[in-house]
């Protein structure tokens, strides 16, 4: 992406984000959101986060799906740590340390 396009993303991202934040604050008589819409909004976060992380964990450098790699093992360990401790930083730290150990054991090429 060129510098111009990246700045277009930044300014576009600003417009849509600020627009959403200001929406009801600027309305003189804010209407209530429909219940179905509210429920949908709550589910956007889990849907987006899973959709962005799953390919990063399970697709290798050549673009093929690989469920058994140091990355998937490290992500599984991070998920278990996060689920048990409910601590974001332990999960990320545990996942990174697991990845380093697995890469050291399996050779630097394994990613």
């Amino acid at each position: 992406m060129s510098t111009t396009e990246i700045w277009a993303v930044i300014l576009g991202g600003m417009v849509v984000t600020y627009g959403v934040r200001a929406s009801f604050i600027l309305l003189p008589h804010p209407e209530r959101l429909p219940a179905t819409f509210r429920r949908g909004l709550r589910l956007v976060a889990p849907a987006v986060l899973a959709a962005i992380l799953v390919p990063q964990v399970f697709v290798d450098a050549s673009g093929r799906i690989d469920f058994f790699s140091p990355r998937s093992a490290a992500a599984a360990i991070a998920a278990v740590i996060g689920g048990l401790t409910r601590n974001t930083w332990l999960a990320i730290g545990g996942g990174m340390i697991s990845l380093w150990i697995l890469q050291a054991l399996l050779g630097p090429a394994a990613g």
Partner: protein
Amino acid sequence: MKPPFRHEFLRGVRDGLPILIGVLPFGLVFGTLAIKAGLTPAESQGLSLFVFAGSAQFVAVQMIAAGAAAPAVVATILLINLRHLLYSASVSPYLARLRLRWRLFLAYLLTDEAFAVSAPRWRQADLEHAHAYYMGAGVALWTCWQLSTALGIAFGARIPESLSLAFALPLTFLAMLLPTLIDRPAWSAAIAGGLLSLALRDLPYGLGLILAVVIAVGVGVSVEALGGTKPAEVRDVDD
């Protein structure tokens, strides 16, 4: 600042401090990863300054690095930040009597964290300067996010490639995902989102991600609707 306003503002700053301990490392990681993804320092700080939305910034950087088209990245930022509609609707009655320029400014500060910190304050009795409390929490968060991004930009480039630091990004998403998995609709949306995104990953311009998210939210809403109309049967199967 008049004394009651300043008092509320400082209370907001103070009550916002604990959450900054969690925000600071995110800003450091964001600044670092934005540079690792090939953004310039100005572009990296620009995202924090103008978009000012943590998870959307991380996803934008990831999509830019993966070669997505600009409109797809902006559409994804919108999708991720749609949840702010809830916050905006929720605080709007308390800000309605303020001048327009105040409302324009306070809308910029409306983040997950500022909303979370100020939510208990709106429920208290004396609301005359409650917006100053919210502003204090928002300004504290804003300052922390900008400074931690700048620190990440300044020092992140010194971290060696062999540490595979880019993998901290999916781990960060994973750590943010876990607390949202509070019920079956949320699990359904996450599983559908992950699988669809994997299946649609070769679609151009980052369209696969957007399509996966829209369908996954539909799946989650459907699961919730099913759970609501036929609770006994559904529960027998899954729980």
